């Protein structure tokens, strides 16, 4: 079978959604299950045209519940797997996001955020799902969520999401927004050999020695896949290292759930990424992510021109949140500004970490993202 190239090395003019699809393919994703939804549909469309050419699977499921279930199944059968959706679909997926966290199935979920709640504003951008990404499914668990602010990052961070998901056996989210997904920009795809790809740690012991949920020192268990002769069991029930249900044991529950949280919390320093701009002497720290961060950077530059010592902290990982970076930046800051396309979500994290009474949220709902001038005016008003 003649296969098309998986990695389209070169310079492109592309939309964020398509760049995300190409990032997935470059990362080694060979299974996509999804359900059409604005503004994420183009990811599915592009994957549908590309997968058959590179020997991968595209399947359109009956809903988002089925999509994520199929993704977890494909992951357990050995493929890197992804789905892409927006708010309403993200809500439907939460049940099995919990299953993926509990059974430690590596998988990537792209949420192109639009305005909510409910059906909301399908064609307009939002950042209203960032807390849902962290807390959406019931029970205690940790996930990883990345926030792209450009078409290039839609590509790069989708690869990063796969790498992190495979490393930690955890669902990883790409929390995009409608603007980043639909805008067209330059995208540079490096040669395949220059792209860092991480594959899950595989079981390499004889089957009789394999305990599917026995972690290594990094708290992550090596993974066997179906059909390799390991004959293991996995369940969404509380389970011991053998994968066997122990639904009445506080000891097993405590050990398992704490490990699911700690494998991310204890490795947070290795996972966390943030971009720091002019923070060294900043009296005003703006914390912004996704498309809003680009307007925020212009605003910060303008503030500098006007003699206000402003800086920008852009969390690239929303979860785990770049706590140390923020704490350091906030040490000498007088004012902290958090512009978000929601009524105040990540700002809670900023308040929690800085414990500052001078944290100001700038909401923007139901239209284009904040303009640089809006953020600049807000800085000027709040920083006296």
């Amino acid at each position: 079978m003649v296969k098309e190239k998986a990695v389209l090395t070169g310079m492109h003019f592309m939309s964020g959604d398509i760049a995300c699809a190409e990032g997935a393919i470059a990362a080694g994703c060979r299974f996509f299950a999804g359900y059409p939804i604005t503004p994420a549909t183009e990811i599915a469309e592009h994957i549908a045209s590309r997968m058959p050419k590179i020997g991968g699977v595209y399947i359109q499921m009956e809903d988002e519940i089925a999509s994520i279930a199929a993704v977890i199944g494909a992951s357990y059968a050995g493929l890197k797997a992804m789905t892409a959706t927006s708010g309403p679909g993200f809500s439907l997926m939460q049940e099995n996001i919990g299953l993926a966290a509990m059974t430690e199935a590596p998988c990537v979920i792209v949420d192109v955020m639009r305005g909510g709640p409910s059906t909301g504003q399908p064609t307009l951008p939002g950042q209203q799902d960032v807390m849902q990404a962290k807390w959406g499914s019931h029970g205690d668990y940790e996930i990883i969520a990345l926030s792209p602010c450009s078409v290039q990052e839609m590509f790069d961070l989708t690869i990063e999401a796969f790498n992190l998901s495979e490393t930690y056996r955890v669902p990883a989210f790409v929390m995009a927004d409608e603007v980043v997904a639909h805008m067209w920009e330059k995208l540079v795809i490096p040669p395949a050999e220059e792209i860092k790809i991480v594959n899950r740690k595989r079981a390499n012991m004889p089957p009789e020695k394999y305990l599917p949920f026995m972690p290594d020192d990094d708290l992550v268990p090596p993974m066997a896949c179906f059909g390799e002769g390991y004959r293991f069991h996995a369940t969404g029930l509380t389970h011991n290292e053998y994968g066997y249900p122990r639904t009445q044991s506080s000891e097993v529950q405590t050990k398992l759930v704490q490990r699911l949280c700690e494998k991310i919390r204890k490795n947070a320093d290795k996972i966390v990424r943030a971009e720091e701009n002019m923070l060294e002497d900043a009296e005003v720290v703006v914390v912004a992510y996704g498309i809003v961060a680009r307007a925020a950077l212009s605003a910060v530059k303008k503030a500098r021109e006007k003699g206000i010592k402003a800086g920008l902290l852009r969390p690239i990982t929303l979860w785990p949140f770049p706590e140390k970076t923020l704490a350091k930046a906030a040490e000498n800051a007088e004012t902290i500004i958090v512009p978000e396309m929601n009524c105040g979500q990540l700002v809670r994290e900023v308040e929690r970490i800085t414990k500052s009474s001078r944290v100001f949220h700038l909401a923007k709902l139901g239209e284009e993202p904040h303009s640089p001038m809006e953020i600049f005016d807000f800085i000027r008003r709040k920083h006296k």
Partner: protein
Amino acid sequence: MTEVVEQHPFAKYLREAMMPHIWCTGCGNGIILNAFVHALDELQIDLDKLVVVSGIGCIGRTAGYTNVDSFHTTHGRPIAFATGVKLANPELEVVVISGDGDLFAIGGNHFIHAARRNIGIKVICANNFNYGMTGGQFGPTTPLKASTPTTPYGNIEHPFNLVHLAAASGATYVARWTTLHVRMLTASIKKLLQRKGFSFIEVVSQCPEIFGRRNKMRTALEMMEWFKKAAVIANFSDPAKAEITPEKIVVGEFLDLEKPTFEELLREKMNEISKENGE
């Protein structure tokens, strides 16, 4: 001379560490598992290439009891999960063993669409007419007038006819047996395992502890007396007419046909595309 065996000949099919099982005395699930294991043994299925997937409910524990790669999903999702497994690795034999509530209430949508696509997964449904694990509430197959904790004055909902639903949705092999028809059921599971496309067997199963005792059938024996008295074998009859009533339970094979599977069509399409791309 009598041969002494140290281990039950079928022990290799079961995870001893998971025993004892959770099923009540008289439950039909053991009969279904037994028939499944017999079918595996008679066909000498490669256990390294078999994946058993279950949802939530009493029969949902089957995945954990079979000594193969197995996964116990969230409620209603085993078919969607199995779809991902089968497409990611079509060489695996993927069998879903779950209950009527799991597969046809919360998971009903997944069932009809997997059947429509003709994904090559095999589905065995234990139909015990109620949600046994949560205490016997009525479900999508509970007979009219039956008494359950959530139909204390009698069920007023019409039940699904599962074999009719499966056939109408596009399944290529469809059968119904009761737990009384052990040999027919085993033979049927063997066929199910040998078919390529979406295959479905409904097993009418007794739940004396939770369902039977509220409905004048206190013991497994009484429930199976009903199966014995009411069962009528009508192979390849119209599944639309395959009723389950106090008087009559129509059992048999209803459908056995060939149709290209999703996996085959996908593979074909890939080959076509790669030829167009130039060879």
